[in-house]
């Protein structure tokens, strides 16, 4: 299976070079989203005009984009759902010198590549055309029991979002948290604080490295996974139903790690393929585990 993953990862290097094209609703041909749009509002995006000729149109900023138009409708497949949020102070948060919002880190290349890997290596049937971007208080979120959120160090959800997240997780939802570390401040504490708001009484606990989630599809040694950057080793935390590690896992927290960074650049040659592989393995394991537990 590792060889298959290696082949799939290698394949991506070539196939993804053409760039990412988001899901196109059959009834909304003009809502094509280009991967480049999250790079900034000033850039332009090439879309297909009615005549089929490529035209250049003004590109909306990530904050201005109406994701309801570009999200793939429910079709009972596995959809990669990225949580969009506001860091407070008006508008959606930005990082990297204001070039992209915090929630959109690695979007959309990371999930695009990851969905290809899922499709190639497992029998999970994913919607590979693109990921869905939803806010926590969007009722649509409840149609997708697995969600992904990043950069929760600066996350500052509203009461409505927190309440909705708590209900989502208690009903059966599963949240994968990525790209958070303490080097930039006490991000762990910020996340733990808001999770306490969402799930009162349920605590983040260190995840045993022998937990089933690390062996649900690939056999992964979590201690051997090297973060793409940063001084600290990767750590894994989780929130369990009734604080009982034998019960259902509600939240998986990749701390001091950023597996989506590997996914995003796995076709660019920035990282050794072996490291990208481990990141993909973790991601695949998380999805297969969540689909069976």
């Amino acid at each position: 299976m590792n060889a298959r993953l290696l082949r799939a990862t290698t394949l991506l290097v070539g196939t993804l070079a053409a760039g990412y094209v988001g899901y196109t609703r059959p009834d909304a041909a003009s809502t094509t989203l280009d991967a480049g749009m999250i790079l900034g509002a000033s850039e332009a995006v090439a879309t297909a005009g009615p005549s089929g000729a490529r035209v250049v149109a003004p590109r909306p900023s990530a904050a201005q984009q109406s994701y309801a138009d570009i999200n793939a409708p429910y079709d009972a497949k596995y959809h990669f759902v990225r949580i969009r949020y506001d860091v407070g102070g008006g508008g959606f948060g930005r990082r990297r010198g204001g070039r992209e919002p915090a929630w959109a880190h690695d979007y959309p290349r990371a999930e695009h590549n990851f969905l290809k890997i899922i499709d190639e290596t497992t029998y999970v049937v994913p919607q590979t055309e693109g990921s869905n971007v939803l806010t926590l208080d969007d009722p649509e979120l409840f149609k997708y029991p697995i969600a992904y959120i990043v950069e929760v160090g600066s996350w500052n959800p509203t009461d409505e979002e927190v309440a909705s997240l708590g209900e989502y997780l208690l009903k059966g939802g599963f949240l994968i948290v990525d790209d958070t570390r303490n080097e930039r401040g006490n991000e762990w504490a910020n996340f733990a604080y808001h999770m306490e708001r969402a799930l009162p009484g349920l605590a983040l606990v260190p995840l045993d490295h022998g937990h089933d989630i690390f062996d649900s599809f690939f056999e992964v040694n979590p201690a051997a996974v090297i973060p793409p950057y940063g001084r600290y080793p990767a750590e894994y935390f989780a929130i369990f139903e009734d604080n009982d590690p034998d019960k259902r896992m509600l939240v998986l927290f990749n701390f001091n790690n950023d597996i989506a960074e590997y996914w995003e650049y796995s076709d660019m040659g920035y990282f050794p393929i072996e490291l990208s592989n481990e990141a993909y393995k973790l991601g695949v394991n998380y999805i297969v585990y969540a689909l069976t537990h």
Partner: protein
Amino acid sequence: MNRIFEFLFKYRPLVFEQGDFTFAAPNSVRLWLVAAGLVGAAAVASYTIARGKSSVAERGVMAGLRVALLAVLVFCLMQPALVLSTVVPQQNFVGVLIDDSRSMTLTDEDGVPRSDFVTQFFTPGESELLDELSERFVLRFFRFSDFANRIDGLEGLTFDGTHTNLAGALTSARQELAGVPLSGLVLVTDGADNDNEPLTEALVPLQAAGVPVFTVGLGEDAISPDIEIGRVEMPRAVLEGSSLLVDVVVTQTGFGRTTVPIIVEDETKILAEEMVELGADGEPVVARIHFELDNAGPRRVRFRIPAQPGERVVRNNAREVQIEVRGETEKILYFEGEPRHEVAFIRRAVDDDDNIQVVLLERTAESKFYRLGVDDGAELEFGFPSSREELYRYRGLILGSVEASFFTHDQLQMIADFVSERGGGLLMLGGRSAFAEGGWAGTPVEEVMPVIMQERVGGPQGFFAEVKVRPTLAGLAHAAVQLAEEGPGVAARWDSLPPLTIMNPIVELRPGATSLLVGTSDALPTSQVVLAFQRYGRGKSIALTVQDTWLWQMHADVALEDQSHETFWKQLTRWLVDGVPQGVAVVTDQEQVEPGERVRLVASVGDSTYIEVNDASVTARITSPSGVVEEVPVDWTVDRDGEYAVQFRPTEQGEYEVDVTAMRGEETLGSATTYLYTTESNEEFFGAGRHAQALRRIAEETGGQYYTPETIETLPEDITVTGAGVTLVEEMDLWDMPILFLLMLLLMGGEWAFRRVRGLV
């Protein structure tokens, strides 16, 4: 009416029915009579040609009256007679069968118990009927409840029999009197048979032997006012914690349109109480009562209606039903072809059910499987079972979205046999690789399924529809799909659930299948089958065509505390394994008996592949309520493969435990346990009105007569003219029937009156 007939015609209609008509006058006399007829005709002619003041019409009328008078006279002179066989006095036997069951103690409207009739009509020296019978026949008396016993006199009657078995009684008496000339059997009973033995089997030999049965129906046709719990439909075994929907049939007379409570209780507590509105007077109603049973072990559930004011019989207001609440954990194999949300949510829904173990085998990639819920590392080690022994360990099988081509032909046949031979429950879930879309059409499994798989929908997207799921009428009455208590809340509860999606368009059921849930959508021309089932062989198959029931748990419109999804899957999985047989099983032919009554134990024995075994050594270990243990061998019945039976008589009151073990050589094939409760029976007080229809049928089919106490006085003569045995031919004169003399007087008087009126005198 019979008395008037007998006055006019000398004999009762029965004699005319039985006899052959003839003229007894010798031939010479007949010639003279013909001559007299000719003279008569000449006389008539003289009327018509005579001239006078009368008209031709008047002469015609007078001539007709005179000819009619002459014809009656000639008829009498011809000596008409009936020829029939009558039994020879004291040369024949008559068996008198008297119902000795408890229902004979019931008091009818006149305040007299039915048993008084027996005393009144069959006490020697005090009854004309008995005297007359004794003069003509040699009488043999029998008492009967479940079968007939000879008695010498009425002192042998106790009226304490716990059952009434008319067929058994007739058969016993026929066999007892087989060696003597038998003129008939007299059956004195209320006819309230409660043994369900087919009457036909008892009547055919009587018909063949020409033995008529004369039935005497006692009691009222309907006891009024009275309420009765007629029947309770409840399984004999359920899993602990199961939710039951039990049909209770309530019959009544005299309490029409009233409302009464039905209380359901076990030894320790009230399980449910439901108010039931009774139908029109005399019409039964079916009350559906929902309750749960916990605590494993044998249980007695009592359904009771409190006595109503003025009610005549109160002992038929309650019924007790024995049920075994099983504490075992039932294993279900869930094979899923693709990781999808449905898997996680199904597992979670039944996770806290201690009696259901869902073993998941999920294909996560090509030749890669994920196992959850297995007992040990060896279970399903090599993927889906490849032998019957391995598959038949499970009692239920769920097939998720997996294409048929994944399986070998042997495995497909094995899945079909899992239902038909092993008696397991098979549930196929909807999905992109299920039903026709998964290539299941044309496989052995398709034949098992309750739905007709339509042509596969092609194209990259295939069929995809969002449907609103609602129960059918059958679904409303089925315990597996009850999400709420009955009533107006049921429809609202289903309406509140979000729509689900279907990728397998299925609209047709197989003959014999039942649809419990359907899905509708404005975008679809017909409703889709969502949940359907059928019995197939020894097991059952269920089709659930939707692919995302988890939306009933996750959807934003569903409240966090809503238990619809959990309830649905708990009930569905329990139903899937409900009634699935064990390799070795044992039942008793009756759930409840009185001490001393016979009970038949029937064990079915199969090997690990559920093939019936006839050469097993089967032993029943019977433990009485006081702890006395008796071991009895159970023998193969020969009639049926794998069936072993033995009879025993429990003597103590209370609960008997019966453990059956089957061995073949040194190998233990299996063991099973059942329970039997012995207590006083009230069975005789149910349906205790006079069953005249059954008694008429017995009489008519054997050539006898049906009587009530009011009409019984003709019984001796009726047996004489209709009975079998030693008979002689008797000629019974008809010329002196009063009707003939009356007729002649009428004709003569008529002519005279006619003449007076017309002035012809």
